[in-house]
């Protein structure tokens, strides 16, 4: 930018117009090519690749069970209710793990709709 400003140049306007025209032309050509290739205009926006989803699944499930087990064990320690806290919370943790996996896999809707619809 700066070197163009420094140069007293009457042809700069014409140059700019020329550049603009060329850019528009290029844009049109790229657009045409995209359609030829069957690419949707919006489709190059980031989207989870399949591998990324796959990598998420296992840890999601294990974490649910681990958290359930840990909380159950802690509950038993605190209230001396062994083994019931562990039994109940591991089962709930199992359910939470499954819920995590189903959310990641897209089987369940991410969040069940509440009263205030944001977004």
């Amino acid at each position, binding site marked *: 930018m700066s070197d163009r400003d420094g140069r007293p140049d009457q042809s700069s306007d014409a140059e700019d117009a020329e550049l603009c025209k060329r850019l528009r032309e290029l844009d049109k050509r790229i657009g045409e090519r995209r359609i030829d290739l069957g690419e949707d205009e919006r489709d190059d926006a*980031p989207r989870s690749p399949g591998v*990324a989803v796959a990598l*998420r699944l296992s840890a*999601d499930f294990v974490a649910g069970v681990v*958290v359930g087990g840990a909380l159950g064990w802690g509950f038993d320690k605190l209230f001396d209710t062994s083994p019931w806290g562990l039994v109940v919370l591991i089962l*709930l943790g199992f*359910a*939470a793990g499954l*819920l995590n996996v189903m959310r990641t896999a897209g089987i369940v809707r991410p*969040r069940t709709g509440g009263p205030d619809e944001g977004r």
Partner: protein
Amino acid sequence: MATDPINQFQIHTLIPIEVGGVDFSFTNSALFMALTVAGASAFLILSSRGRGLVPTRWQSAAEMTYEFVAGTLRESAGSEGMKFFPFVFSLFIFILFANLLGMFPYFFTVTSHIIVTAAMSMAVILTVLFYGLWLHKLHFFKLFVPSGVPVVLLPFITMIEILSFISRPISLSIRLFANMLAGHITLKVFAGFVVMLSSFGFVGILGAILPLAAAVALTALEFLVAALQAYVFAILTCLYLNDALHPGH
């Protein structure tokens, strides 16, 4: 070094520092965290220095990184989520550079230690929790109470939702740490096979071709995993931030 696959994860003290009986030593882990930050900063500052309208190759790479993270965040958390862009971008670029630095032979992989990944995921989940509470006050807890559920089932569902929420930082940290740890151990084990087999003479060298090929393939896979894990961490951060912004959704 030899062929012990766990040796690479050991932490050594480089500069011993002790403040009030607490060990603050500068370790190899700290060194590589500093290198990660320096590398990421250097990449972004140097590549965007030209500020060209038509970007150079490096500037284009930096712009693509920016647009990629910005697009991910905007898509999953809406435009209100963009105020968390510096946070998400820092996490993404830190994890990406730490993972990629770890791919150099003899380098230390910061993200293969659960304490590092756990600290990052706690930062994420505490941000979600406090920002959600600050923004929505007690309405934030609607996150755990789905509507349209029979009253009999509601306590169970709520418990499951709470457990699911608590399991998030754990799965977030375990995923990154386990992937990096397992990948580096596998790589080391296969490379160790090559050394061991090739010491058995000609037949051994012939036999070593197989693990060598596996090691090469695994290296490529590790590069993929390094980038993908950074991406997964970033996109999950975005999804969780979305919960903080729109808990009833």
